């Protein structure tokens, strides 16, 4: 029986969007006949002639083009070859896409796909997780799916939303994650913006997103051996953040660890800890903790990389410390 990867889910969601909505087109480098650097658009150019277009190496103009097309009623999806290159389209994203609706009343329904996160040997410029940078800006929705099913439904939601969406798809999950079948439609399980309790637990809450959900789950599994029962919350979207679900979880467990693959300063973990400290102070039995990447560019050598980012074992360590506080 054939199983569906996280990458394939993204491809299938784009295929469905193209099929169901004539306003959708995809624009990015090498995404046409070639099917994209990661093959996320494989065969789509053939199936939808003229609607999956190779772009020049011009990230600023790629986003600008998407914005202009959205203004005229289209639903463009832009593929960045790597999240890291979105810095070259940064200005259009944060200053034009994010502000358009507030300034003019015209919505800007674009999706910018960012192949994100670290993989061994990818180094400082093909490994970045930029969700916190974009989430800082009001007007941008930032999605960070952690499962094959979410990758599929959230891509469909992203295309349907009236707002610009930064879609952070994790490269490490592309091939590692598989599912037997996909949901029929978005919202079947959870509505947009709602976090998931991936693993219910009693003793502490780990809030994570994207690839870190799986490190958190493995750590939770490891801690069962110590007799602990850890709850894992998958944020799914980091803007908006589903503070209610987090607070409800912390209310049950009294302890919070937030894990992010990006750097700590101002990251998702900082934002979640700040929210819980502010809104759920009384729920906490111990100081909330966060675990992030080390404070350097993402290193090239797999041995360094494996230490740079949080892993099941470093999450488990942090949890053990938290449980003793």
């Amino acid at each position, binding site marked *: 029986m054939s199983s569906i990867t996280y990458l394939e889910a993204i491809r299938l969601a784009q295929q469905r969007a193209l099929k169901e909505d004539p306003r959708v087109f995809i624009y990015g480098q090498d995404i046409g006949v070639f099917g994209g650097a990661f093959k996320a658009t494989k065969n789509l150019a053939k199936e939808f002639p003229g609607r999956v277009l190779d772009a020049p190496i011009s990230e600023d103009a790629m986003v*600008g083009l998407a914005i202009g097309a959205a*203004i005229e009623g289209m639903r*463009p999806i832009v593929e960045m070859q790597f999240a890291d290159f979105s810095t070259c389209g940064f*200005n259009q994203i944060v200053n*034009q896409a994010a502000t358009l609706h507030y300034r*003019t009343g015209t*919505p800007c329904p674009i999706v910018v796909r960012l192949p994100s996160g670290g993989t061994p040997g990818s180094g400082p410029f093909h490994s970045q997780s930029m969700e916190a940078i974009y989430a800082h800006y009001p*007007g941008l929705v930032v999605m960070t799916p952690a499962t094959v099913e979410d990758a599929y439904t959230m891509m469909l939601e992203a295309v349907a939303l009236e707002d610009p969406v930064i879609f952070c798809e994790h490269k490490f999950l592309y091939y590692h994650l598989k599912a037997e079948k996909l949901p029929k439609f978005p919202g079947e399980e959870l509505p947009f*913006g709602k976090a998931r309790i991936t693993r219910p637990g009693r003793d502490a809450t780990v809030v994570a997103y994207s690839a870190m959900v799986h490190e958190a789950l493995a750590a939770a599994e490891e801690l069962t051996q110590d007799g602990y029962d850890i709850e894992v919350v998958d944020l799914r979207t980091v803007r908006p953040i589903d503070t209610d679900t987090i607070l409800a979880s912390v209310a049950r467990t009294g302890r919070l660890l937030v894990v992010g693959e990006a750097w700590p300063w101002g990251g998702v973990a900082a934002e979640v800890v700040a929210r819980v400290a502010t809104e759920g102070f009384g729920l906490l039995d111990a100081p909330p903790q966060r675990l992030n990447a080390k404070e350097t560019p993402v290193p090239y050598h797999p041995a360094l990389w494996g230490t740079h980012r949080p892993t099941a074992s470093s999450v488990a360590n942090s949890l053990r410390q938290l449980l003793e506080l």
Partner: protein
Amino acid sequence: MTKPKSAKTKGSQEKSSTGATAGVLTAELARRAYRTMLEARLLEEKLAALYRSGKIVGGVFLGRGQEALSVSLGVHLRRGDIYAPLIRDQAGRLAFGDTILDTLRTYLGSSLGSMRGRDGNIHRGRPSEGYHAMISHLGAMVSTVCGSLVAKRFRGEKGTVGATCIGEGGTSTGSFHEGMNMAAVEKLPLVVVVANNQYSYSTPNDRQFACSDLLAKAAGYGVQGHRAVGNDLVDCLSVIGEAVAAARRGEGPQLVVADLLRLVGHGEHDDASYIPEALKKSPLGRDCLELAKQSLVEREWLSEEEAASWHKAVEKDVEETASKVLREPAPDPTEEDWNAFASLGRNH
């Protein structure tokens, strides 16, 4: 610093217009253009006065001296076209359908203006009507217009064009370059007018670029190039008319370069003392509004009396509109929805 050029020098892919009497130019068009220039000029004078009296806060950025070039693009666009004007395009905006009323409302931050006090001055537009609202970051609108044109192509709309302006300084931005190249690759019906007013803010051209002729950029992108005499309305009308027509005919992107001078500071806070007197007194410094009137009068398309009566009528219109807008409500922060999202509630 400034490199005066003869008006009709040929660049490598340059198309020279067939001159003042070319195709599209009619008395009616020229009269409409002149009247719009007059509106822009008098409206801007009012804006400057409102700025000096402290009624407009932030800044006022005028296009004085550039009305002929600006209006020539505006009048050649029509319903369904895309227009992304820049800083000095008051005249083009009015020609495209913007109004004295909305300009004043936007500058004064009226809640009734199209920007509702959220954005102001030159950053106004109605994107859903093809009238893009520039962001400040120069060059950014080139690719945005491309995107709207791609949308039209998807919809099978034919014969519409997209147009934007930029200063010579803006050509140094990476955005400009990426947008031009993309337009050329997609063969979009885009018209880009470069107003080479010799200065970008205070920076003279020799600190901005080193090519002997900005029009040489056309060949580097593989787009058609045109040169207009920036303060000559009749020449601008015919050259830009031809550029717009070429784009409409499906000949791909068109780059128009025009030399001229802004007869005012970068903004009203700036006295432009960095512009040498000799340059101001050169042919480049001649006032396009004055020249346009002379030229239309010479052609007997307009009489001095009519021009004077237009002046009076426009002045009255501007004054009355300003008084009205000055009495309009400012935006009320307690009524503001403070929500940047279109589909999400507040505080997300």
